[in-house]
């Protein structure tokens, strides 16, 4: 019986592939794409201001609402923060990933993996509350800075309009630091994998042809690692865009997209507006990928 089944599958490889792919395709098709479509659909409904009930008619009213100054600020703030976190993550992750891919060997390499992955093992909330303590006015950073007699530097930084605040834990700088900390492993790992795949002879060829180390980095290493960098930036960018817990706990009380979605679908009961907010990151990501592709970022794949 089992032998006959295995024979049949051997004769008809298509059937075998179909059997293997059906469960994940159902999952992807119905649960994921389906709910995404439902979300999209919701965003074209609107809410009745008087009754607070959803009107099931297709309209762009919710999207107009998205563009009011208050909501526009939330979107802009979130995009700027996501850009800043992604840029900083790329800058910080690149040397780390380069070191791990090119120079670390044996135990040092194991240590690197551990170092990059460890933050992912502990609870997200624990990490954020730990950061709140670190960044607070009574926290370790303030204590060290004061001990070194550099309190005036920290105060000068915190005195900046918009990004500053009473202490690091209630400023945008704090939000930025914690988001960077939480999401940077998602930049290091793909970048490191991409750098590891850059063949050594290509670097030697560049060197042999007269390039300095900087020129090799710019003309060979970075272009060939670009797909990994883009992959990492997709992670850090979209994870920052969607995060609603970090800005809630650390930072000023001004909202980010994630918080807006959370508030509108919850207490406010404005599902259409929550859906419209949720569409924003999708649109931004789609535009980003389209642009990266057009600029040839994936040509080396």
């Amino acid at each position: 019986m089992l032998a006959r089944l295995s024979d049949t599958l051997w004769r008809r490889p298509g059937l075998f592939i179909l059997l293997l792919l059906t469960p994940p395709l159902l999952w992807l098709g119905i649960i994921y794409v389906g709910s995404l479509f439902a979300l999209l659909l919701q965003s074209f409904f609107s809410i009745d201001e008087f009754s607070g009930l959803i009107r099931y008619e297709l309209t762009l009213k919710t999207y107009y609402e998205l563009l009011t100054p208050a909501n526009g600020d939330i979107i802009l703030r979130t995009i700027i923060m996501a850009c800043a976190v992604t840029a900083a993550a790329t800058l910080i992750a690149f040397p780390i990933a380069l070191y791990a891919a090119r120079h670390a060997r044996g135990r040092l390499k194991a240590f690197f993996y551990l170092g990059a992955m460890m933050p992912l093992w502990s609870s997200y909330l624990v990490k954020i509350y730990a950061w709140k303590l670190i960044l607070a006015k009574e926290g370790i950073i303030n204590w060290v800075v004061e001990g070194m007699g550099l309190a005036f530097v920290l105060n000068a930084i915190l005195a900046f309009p918009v990004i500053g605040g009473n202490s690091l834990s209630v400023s945008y700088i704090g939000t930025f630091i914690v988001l960077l900390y939480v999401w940077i492993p998602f930049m290091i790992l793909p970048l490191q994998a991409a750098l590891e795949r850059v063949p050594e002879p290509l670097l030697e060829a560049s060197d042999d042809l007269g390039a300095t180390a900087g020129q090799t980095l710019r003309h060979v290493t970075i272009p060939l690692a670009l797909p990994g960098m883009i992959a990492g930036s997709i992670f850090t960018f979209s994870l920052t865009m969607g995060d609603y817990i970090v800005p809630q706990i650390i930072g000023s009380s001004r909202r980010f997209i994630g918080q807006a979605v959370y508030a509108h679908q919850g207490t406010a009961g404005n599902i259409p507006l929550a859906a419209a907010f949720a569409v924003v990151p999708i649109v931004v990501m789609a535009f980003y990928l389209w642009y990266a592709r057009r600029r040839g970022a994936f040509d080396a794949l």
Partner: protein
Amino acid sequence: MTVAVAFENTSRHFGAVVAVDRVDLVIEEGSFFAMLGPSGSGKTTCLRLISGFERPSEGLIRIFGEDSNDIPPNRRPVNTVFQDYALFPHLDVDDNVAYGLMVRGVPRGRRKDEAGRMLELVKLGGYGRRKPSELSGGQRQRVALARALINRPRVLLLDEPLGALDLKLREQMQDELKAIQETLGITFIFVTHDQGEALSMADQIAVMNEGRVIQTGSPREIYEHPRTRFVADFVGSSNVFPPEVSVSFGEAEAWSSLRPETVSLAPPGTGRVDGHVVSVRYLGASKRVTIAVRDHLVAAIIAADSPVPDQGGGVSLVWPAGSFHVMDDD
């Protein structure tokens, strides 16, 4: 004659492994020099010592008289054609070839012209806009050559340049490499494990084994007067006889080599020694016959149309006086 590259008592160790062992070598300017040896003989490490990717553990490398130990690869007057070509996959052929000029800050227009000229030299004119992935193995090889030549190096290094090509293409590229070397008049140093390639292209050969240079000389010297058993065996699968067998064949009592193509066959009892045929292998233009003389095997290469007794048949061996070549005992 100017000396292009000189090894002076140069060694390279990797931990306990001695890749290059006290090598002394002089490569003259304008020569087509082959480093020949089996894999693991240290020939590629020698090439990397010249290009600067390895530094000597002891001794030094001189390039045009200058001690090069502290000169990084990007500042040596040397360029390399890498074994698997190492073309930049994200750049088109033009940009690959012009890379050396680009990093030197040559303006774009001049770069394009020069790359075009180099591609003409390697017979790839008009391929400039293609990506390396769109080229065949032979074409990639030519791009790698053009890219290495664009900086007008005084020495060109080639690491198993023809290893990945099929036989017909390999023969064609051998002729072309030779022609390009003669046109440009620069020194070519190439590494190969293929003795036929070394013999047909080079005008000087260094035979290497276990990190040491065993013999240097012209192809003819190497082929006809191998200094040691290893050289005789590696360059052209010679017959190698220990002293007692040489004596029994009526020659001097010493390690000797006998080229298979100098041996001919005669009816039993008419030649120098008698034996019987063990095997006959057809090689196209010739045949390789293995004959057992007492308990020693002797190979003979004869014309494909000459008659050979069946397997086990008696036969006598003939060779001209002076064919036995006496060698060092190592």
